[in-house]
């Protein structure tokens, strides 16, 4: 029996989160989805639809009012203590704004090495530094940056540092909350390609959040569309893009110029950067 294939890496079950406020907004309303090993799920919806709140519930930053988050079958919304910490480690997060998600008073070496230090993955300073250099290489940055502070980097570089920091604890899944939305258009594609490469190289699963369908198009084999706290449509990329069932998805598709899939494939093949199209079922 191969349970690894049966049990999804991440499962969100009927998540509900209401913010106590004047309006009492139900930011997340009965949201369920699964991400299997090696899979990339795109979570798409307009601003305010509850994507970040969902991500924060999954990452353990928020406690959902009801519903469960299961990591490899273990319910982390109920768990506590050391076991929880070990399980939580398997899911890491990359935030939207790399200008605020990196502690401005820590060097790149400290930022990337922190996870290895606090989890005792690499307690030795020198070896931790070596591993940090490797991680920086993985995200396309040189070791000359080790002792610099975040303020000396561009947005794209900062996001690479943030990715290296998340990768340092060896996660199985990366939650990416609009990781390119605050970057210059010119570097968005580079960072998106990096995520594609990481999937390929490390067999990383992704929960990739975006506010338009174009961004997730070449990265995610499966797409969930959120509107007003609910997942209104969920399915394979081809199905969602070519024959959307929900009017909201159709509106989203009309709002942004999603490149012609055939042309996109041809371009991707030429560049050789996108390996995972149509392989949403692939297993590690």
């Amino acid at each position, binding site marked *: 029996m191969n349970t690894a294939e049966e049990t999804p890496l991440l499962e969100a079950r009927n998540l509900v989160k209401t913010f106590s406020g004047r309006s009492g907004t139900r930011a997340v309303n009965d949201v369920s989805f699964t991400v299997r090993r090696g899979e990339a799920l795109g979570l798409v919806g307009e601003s305010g639809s509850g994507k970040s709140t969902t991500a*924060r519930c999954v*990452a*353990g*930053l928020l406690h959902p009012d009801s519903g469960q988050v299961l990591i490899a079958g273990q319910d982390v919304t109920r768990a506590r203590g050391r076991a929880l*910490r070990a399980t*939580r*480690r398997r*899911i*890491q*997060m990359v*935030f*939207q*704004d790399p*200008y*605020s*998600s*990196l*502690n*401005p*008073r*820590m060097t790149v070496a400290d930022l990337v090495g*922190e*996870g290895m230090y*606090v*989890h005792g993955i690499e307690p030795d300073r020198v070896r931790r530094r070596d591993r940090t250099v490797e991680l920086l290489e993985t995200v396309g940055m040189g070791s000359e940056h080790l002792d610099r502070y*975040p*303020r*000396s*980097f*561009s*947005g794209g570089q900062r996001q690479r540092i*943030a990715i290296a*920091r*998340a990768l340092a*604890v060896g996660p199985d899944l990366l939650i990416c909350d609009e990781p390119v939305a605050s970057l210059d258009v010119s570097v968005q594609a580079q960072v998106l390609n990096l995520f594609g490469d990481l999937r390929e190289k490390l067999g990383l699963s992704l929960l990739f959040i975006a506010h338009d369908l174009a961004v997730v198009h070449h990265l995610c084999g499966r797409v969930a569309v959120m509107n007003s706290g609910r997942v209104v449509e969920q399915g394979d990329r081809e199905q969602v893009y070519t024959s959307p069932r929900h009017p909201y998805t159709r509106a989203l598709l009309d709002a942004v110029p999603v490149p012609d899939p055939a042309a996109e494939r041809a371009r991707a093949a030429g560049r050789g950067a996108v390996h995972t199209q149509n392989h949403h079922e692939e297993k590690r």
Partner: protein
Amino acid sequence: MSTTTPVPTRSAGLRNLLTRKGGNKQGHTTFVDRAALGVAGLMVLLALVGPYLAPMDPYAVDLAKSLTPPGSEHWMGTDANGRDILSRVLAGGRTTILATVAVIAVATVIGTLIGTAAALGGRIVDEILMRICDVGLSLPAIVVALGLAAAMGPSLQSAVIALAATWWPGYARLVRTLVRETRDAEFVESARVLGVSRTRLVLRHVLPNSLSALYVQTTLDVSAVMLVISGLSFVGVGAQVPASEWGAMIAASRDTAITAWWTVLFPGLAIALTAIAFNLVGDWLRVRTDPTLRTGGR
């Protein structure tokens, strides 16, 4: 909630007045900043070595020389008891400045502990600590000092204790506000997702990124605390009369101020100069650490 204090910008006008350029928004170090840093540095130095620099014994009474005007022998003149004022100003700097530093240091430590606990300890802890702060803030330093003077006898120590006891709630509120802001920053969430322990989260991520405004405030407060200490000495509940504390010196010269101006002018100048210098340094720090000016690399 009424318990949030905006980051005070008490002396924003002073620097503008002095630089004439109307706000040094780039955070460049101007001549005035250098001068202020110099004077403040000098005063701190004075606190350390002042008594050794005094040309004469600051306590040596010589009634024959009572109220000698400034001249070649006594550069700042002598007081009613014939004591050399220059020597007393140099020696008094230590008392005044060390007392000020003691007040600020104690208030900063208590304020940071209480403010951080209030910001991170949950609703009930927050409510209790903030009510205690309210009580502390509602007590004027002078009243507490008078009370302590009555209970412990008037002394510089009781003035320092009274001042520290009434000064920390302001810092606690400021720290609470600052930490609440930082607490929700994305880099703190990033550390939480990474699995960083609570202690490390506070010490490594939250506090270092919260306290720069507190340091600015404490520097700006040096002048205020110094004035209150001198004031308390002046009204008789701080340093006691023979002591060469600047405020006490002025107090002791009350009766001679009109006939012998030098007896109050020089200690007064010392107080004013130090107060202005620390105020300007605080301002300079504020501009330099203003987060809106530190976007570096963007």
